[in-house]
């Protein structure tokens, strides 16, 4: 791939990316979220068209208009969200849309083919099983089999281990090696250094849409890679001073929470947050952060442990009760969770307080208060683009976040919990959000900041906890934290080298 450029709404997701993939090579892509790995993969798989640049396959330039074109040329991708029909059998999923399958389906042929491919790559799945009966790891095998069945020579695996157990991961690595030995080329996207070391031949590191380096895996030390990933070249000012710490306002004890699949997403975590303290949670997405914030907010019942707000146990209390007890929460999804997308800014600003005065006046709502408070907050927080009757979904990301923050910090609260509060925001809006968080701290609020942006955590937090696979694997004070150490822990790399 030569000089690939791709922008989304003016943001460069890929900036002049060059990338080479050898035959029979497993090539790992490392980088933080939004570094451009996935964009490059999607361009290669035909999902996006590059704004400029070219793709050479066996030396010949190719142009893919769709994933179908790419697949026909032998390039296929396993997405993080599987493209499998759950209610179909494995064999049916293999046959779906396959150009060489005859109109009359022969179950026997399909089953035989599935067995043959599974045997060749040490990859057994039952072709007659329904996909919904399979574990996530097995479903992933079906996705890979689909590509093999279509004779893909280049396979792109987008964070394939994110959904796997360690054992399943081991099995996947064996299969990846077998496929490489068979002359297929693999692109392996990962956050985890030990995996990269374990399975890849070469590694390329992305940052801010560019390729920052490429090396043979044997030559690269984890420390080097971590440094390349987080990139220390731009120095953010450290936060200034710290506020007086007061009493513990949020206390989480031995909290265990199941994830959407019913597996243990959070496995016994304890955190105390004091007044005037910012506690940062570092970690790659999907290591229990979501379960933690949901359990604190009351959106998900824990399987064990307690949550205390302002010294009172709220573990089994409702969402509304926790709001009244002083929990402000800026969720990761601005639209659809933090804000009701079809309602106006004024209405969204009342989303948490509408049950009580001044919004509620007797049995009715006071429309004037909606208007006056709405106008005031929109003014105070400099929300732009609001028009009467305009649904908030038409505001820009930065303005949405202003509306959200305005509402959350304007109500009585003792704790502010925020997840990825600056994700997708431009520089100015990011600055405003960060100042807002520091202002909260100075006002004596306890802040829980969950972010995947290490720079952000380092510049705002008094303490940083690192999450990995649902547990706290490290704790640093603001003074002693270094991005390298945190990066290693986030990637599951411990001193002993085992994950």
């Amino acid at each position, binding site marked *: 791939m030569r000089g690939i450029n791709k922008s*989304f*709404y003016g943001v460069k997701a890929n900036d002049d990316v060059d990338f080479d993939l050898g035959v029979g090579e497993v090539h790992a892509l490392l980088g933080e979220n939004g570094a451009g790995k996935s964009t490059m993969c999607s361009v290669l798989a035909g999902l996006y068209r590059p704004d400029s640049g070219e793709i050479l396959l066996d030396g010949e330039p190719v142009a893919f208009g769709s994933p179908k074109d790419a697949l026909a040329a032998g390039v296929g991708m396993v997405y993080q969200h599987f493209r499998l029909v759950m209610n179909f059998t494995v064999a049916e999923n293999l046959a779906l849309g396959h150009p060489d399958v005859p109109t009359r389906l022969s179950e026997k042929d399909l089953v035989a083919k599935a067995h043959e491919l599974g045997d060749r790559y040490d990859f057994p799945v039952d072709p007659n099983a329904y996909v919904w009966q399979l574990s996530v790891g097995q479903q992933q095998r079906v996705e890979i089999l689909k590509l093999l069945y279509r004779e893909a020579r280049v396979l792109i695996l987008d964070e394939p281990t994110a959904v796997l157990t360690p054992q399943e991961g081991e099995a996947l690595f064996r299969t990846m090696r077998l496929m490489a030995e068979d002359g297929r080329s693999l692109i392996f996207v990962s956050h985890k250094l030990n995996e990269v070391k374990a399975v890849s031949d070469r590694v390329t590191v992305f940052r801010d849409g560019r390729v920052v380096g490429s090396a043979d895996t044997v030559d690269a030390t984890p420390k080097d890679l971590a440094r390349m990933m987080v990139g220390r070249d731009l120095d953010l000012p450290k936060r200034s001073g710290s506020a007086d710490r007061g009493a513990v306002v949020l206390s989480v004890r031995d909290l265990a929470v199941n994830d959407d699949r019913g597996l243990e997403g959070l496995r016994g975590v304890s955190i105390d947050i004091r007044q005037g303290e910012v506690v940062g949670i570092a970690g790659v997405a999907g290591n229990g952060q979501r379960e933690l914030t949901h359990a604190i*907010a009351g*959106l998900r019942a824990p399987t064990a442990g307690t949550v205390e707000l302002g010294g009172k146990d709220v573990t089994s209390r*409702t*969402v*509304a*009760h*926790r*709001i009244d007890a002083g929990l402000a*929460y800026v*969720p990761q*999804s601005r*639209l*659809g*969770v*933090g*804000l*009701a*997308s*079809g*309602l106006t800014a004024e*209405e969204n600003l*009342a*989303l*948490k307080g*509408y*049950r009580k005065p001044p*919004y*509620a006046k007797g*049995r*009715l*709502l006071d*429309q004037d208060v909606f208007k006056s408070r709405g106008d005031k907050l929109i003014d105070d927080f400099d929300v732009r*683009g609001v*028009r009467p*009757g*305009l*649904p908030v*979904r*038409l*505001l*820009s*990301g930065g303005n949405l976040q202003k509306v959200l923050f305005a509402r959350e910090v304007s109500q009585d609260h003792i704790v502010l919990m925020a997840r990825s509060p600056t994700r*997708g925001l431009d520089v100015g809006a990011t600055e405003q959000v960060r100042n807002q968080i520091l202002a909260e701290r100075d006002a004596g609020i306890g802040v829980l900041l969950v972010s995947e942006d290490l720079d952000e955590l380092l510049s705002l937090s008094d303490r940083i906890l690192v999450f990995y696979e649902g547990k706290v694997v490290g704790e640093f004070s603001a003074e002693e934290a270094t991005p390298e150490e945190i990066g290693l822990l986030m990637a599951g790399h411990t001193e002993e080298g085992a994950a």
Partner: protein
Amino acid sequence: MTRRFIVEPRGVADSWVKLAVPVASVVAALVLGAIFLAITGNSVIEVYAKMLKTAFGSWRGFSETLVSATPLILTGLAAAVAFKMLVWNIGGEGQLLIGAVLASGVAIMMGDNVPAVAAVVLVISAGAVGGALWAGIAAAPRVYLGTNEIITTLMLNFIAINLMNYLVFGSFSPWRDPDATQFPQGRPISDRARLPEFGELIPGLKSFLHRLDLGFVIAVVVAILIWVVLFRTPWGFGYRVAGDSAGAARYAGVKVSRTFFATFLMSGAAAGLAGGIMVAGVLGKMDPRSLELGLGFTGIIVAALARLNPVVVIPVAILLGALINSGPALQSIGVPSSTAVMLQGAILIFAVAGEFLIRNRIRRPDAVPTEVSEAEGATA
């Protein structure tokens, strides 16, 4: 690939668009109707003039239009309230009928033993309760088991139709008039349980409003009340948040399942009230032939045309009431009364398609959009 047209979501639909689309669907339906009338050799102008004259041309006609509109306001509300919360209750028909069954049952049971005002209140309340119960049969499994309510409410319509017919035509139940020896019909309820006509309350109105009864006022009041509840109370605010986005509602502490269930029952109650009001009002008995007019289904047209706004339901119901009222009169000029039904269906088809134009704008690719589109707004 260059496209001739680009479709993109609108931000705020201008109010002229919101008004123009329903008006245009009515006009388009009339044009379509005109084509069919012309093909079958009828005079388009004569037919439409006759319809207009019947529905609005005289006090008697106008009062009959309001009589027809009364249950439509309520079934329209039933659909509007439900659909806005994404409760797909299409069982207004059955809920209306069961409302009528329960209302007439209570009236027959009471006989002449209950004083007038109390009797009327009891009878029409029984209608609302009946509708809510019938909706509850679909609502409970939807909330607790996740059973698709589209199909269950639809099926319950036909169970209700057959049940009502059984009570009057298929058995000697208390609902059947024992004095009707020739052809079975519903047993008349006591006059004490009847809703008074305007003309009875204020004699001077008799010659204007004829047999229009207080049911019309009740329907209008209910519509306004529902508007107030949805747009001016904390509960209604939670309801609107939940209808817009369940995730945001949960996050804000709204009990989404409970709100959903309450909405479902409220919707059923509105339809059931329509049945109760018909029994206590114009019909005075449970008369299957006068109840099985598809009023529940027509209510869905009303709600769609009113874009689910409870107050706009009122004028739309009057328009549809006019259509229903004018149908039979066409027979006198040799045109089938089903012309009115055909027009109803056509209006709805165009209104549904028109919803697309309210939600989206269509522009030429070279034109510069005047405001940020939805996709950009979400990611920028």
